[in-house]
């Protein structure tokens, strides 16, 4: 009885725990640092974007969280269990960046092998395999050998493998790298569906426009270090506004600094760090100074702008 209560209590704690949590997770290979001090929490039911340029340490991060490589230091948990726990992997889906599956098997057979390894009840295999094949739109070629698939189809299969068994957290490493625009759209739909079901998605990507469309929260990593993290709307606060104006002298133009950082190329003024609510106030000020306003172009800061800004490049 006590044992049952303890197990129920443990299950409650696990359900309440975040999907992913890690503190100062570090991995080095020999003397080379692949990932330094990764600290983050991914709540359940959110899509988390893990962004960074090639070689920044994104894939290492995923492998650490999945327990495929052991951290050099730091610790973390996945669905309330310590990293590397074998049993928790029954509730986790993963599509690696190198989405290679046995070319001599059919998609159905690959999925069957994964059902077996994930220890799904044998009676559920057929329905589950049909479900994920339908989700990734691969039913028609499901009995053909994987070796005959295009890259895009192999990536769809990778996604199907990751979705098998309705996992509570899904790791997708560059899931749309081989997909055409329709395929990418499909993946966004699938990700939104997962969020609605309460599944956490850890999305590794450098396709920033896509991340911006689906992610709730992001972390940006560069040279093995997290350089920014938080909710997407918080990270992208502060847009800019371009104004085509004439009739203002240098002193008057300089007096606009109170609105933000002003970039002046003669005909156009760009005010960076200006919130959208203050644009009418800016226009009012320009007019009161005697300026003639021909055009006003508000610009939202895109994730790419923010990303490049953080990496020290000019947006």
């Amino acid at each position, binding site marked *: 009885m006590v044992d049952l209560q303890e197990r129920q209590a443990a299950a409650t704690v696990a359900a309440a725990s975040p999907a992913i949590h890690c503190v100062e997770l570090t991995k080095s*290979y020999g003397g080379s640092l692949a990932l330094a001090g990764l600290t983050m929490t991914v709540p359940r039911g959110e899509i988390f974007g893990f962004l960074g340029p090639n070689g920044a340490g994104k894939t290492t991060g995923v*492998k650490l969280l*999945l327990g*495929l*490589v052991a951290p050099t230091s730091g610790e973390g948990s996945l669905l309330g269990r310590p990293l590397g726990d*074998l*049993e928790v*992997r*029954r509730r*986790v889906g*993963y*599509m*690696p*960046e*190198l*989405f*290679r*599956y*046995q070319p*001599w*098997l059919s998609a159905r057979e690959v999925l069957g*092998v*994964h059902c*077996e*390894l*994930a*220890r799904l009840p044998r009676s559920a295999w057929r329905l589950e395999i049909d479900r994920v094949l339908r989700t990734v739109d691969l039913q028609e070629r499901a009995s053909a050998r994987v070796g005959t698939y295009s890259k895009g189809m192999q990536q769809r299969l*990778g996604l199907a*493998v990751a979705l098998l068994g309705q996992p509570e957290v899904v*790791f997708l490493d560059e899931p749309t790298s081989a997909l055409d625009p329709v395929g990418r759209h499909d993946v966004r739909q699938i990700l939104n569906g997962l969020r609605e079901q309460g599944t956490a998605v850890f999305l590794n990507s450098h396709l920033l426009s896509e991340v911006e469309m689906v992610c709730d929260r992001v972390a940006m990593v560069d040279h093995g270090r997290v350089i920014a993290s938080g909710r997407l709307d918080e990270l992208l606060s502060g847009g800019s506004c371009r104004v085509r104006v004439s009739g203002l002298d240098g002193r008057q133009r300089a007096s606009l600094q109170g609105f933000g950082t002003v970039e002046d190329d003669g005909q156009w003024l760009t005010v960076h760090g200006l919130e959208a609510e203050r644009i009418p106030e800016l226009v009012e000020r320009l007019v009161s100074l005697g300026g003639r306003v021909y055009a006003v172009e508000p610009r939202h800061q895109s994730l790419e702008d923010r990303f490049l800004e953080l990496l020290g490049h000019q947006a």
Partner: protein
Amino acid sequence: MAALTIAKLTVWEASRRRLLLALLLLTLVIIGLTGWGFTKLGEAGNGQRLPDYQIRLIASQLLIVIVFMFAGVLALSSVFLASPTISSDVESGVLLALLARPVRRLDVVLGKWLGLAVLVVMYAAGAAILELLVLWWATGYLPPRPVELIVYVAGEGIILMTLALALSTRLAGMTGGIIALVGYFMAWIGGIVGGVGQAIHNDGLVTGGLIMKLLLPTDALWRGAVFAMEPATVIAALKATGSAGAGNPFGATEPPATAFLLWTVLWLVAVFGLSYWGFRRRAL
């Protein structure tokens, strides 16, 4: 159990890649040809038939050479199969998706080993049984210890497969395969050198042969297979020559000692342990 799933995948792959079919067809061709040869054994040049005891004696010696070829095919096939088995799965990324399931690295190594061992035993037993049946049909002769013959030939294949598997955890398939093959031929030559040492009472050569035998026990198991095939009359004749015939790689007067067989089991366990150790530490 995940290891059994991996073992099943390993056998499945060999079958899907038509390796089993190719081996089966080639083996049937060889068995057919040798069977034809065996039926012709009794025909002497003057149109008369050789006495049965002579036919059986020649058949027994021919069988040793034929089984040597089968054992060689099995040894080379084991190396070709096992040497890329883990390294290529790591390089292609196939293992990443598998290891993200509740699968330990030990399951992968054990599963691959089990799958390959099943293939080796299937081939050794299948080819030997067919060849012996054809031999019996053509000449009425069967070697004295057919089960031991199969066990020794399969053991030789399993030893080489285990070595190649261990190498595949750290080295590219081509590199591991070449090392295992060189080892196989070195062991064979080491057996001959040790035998020559016995024949000429040269302790240095005997020790060299013994070291080689302990490092890679394939040739010593081959000698066990030879002993299992030799009729009592041949063994008696070889024994009568004393140690002079010890250098003959197709002759044996004694079965492998129990201590040596125990060493072989230990060797297998140790090299399998090395495979696990090698793979456990390998970055994916």
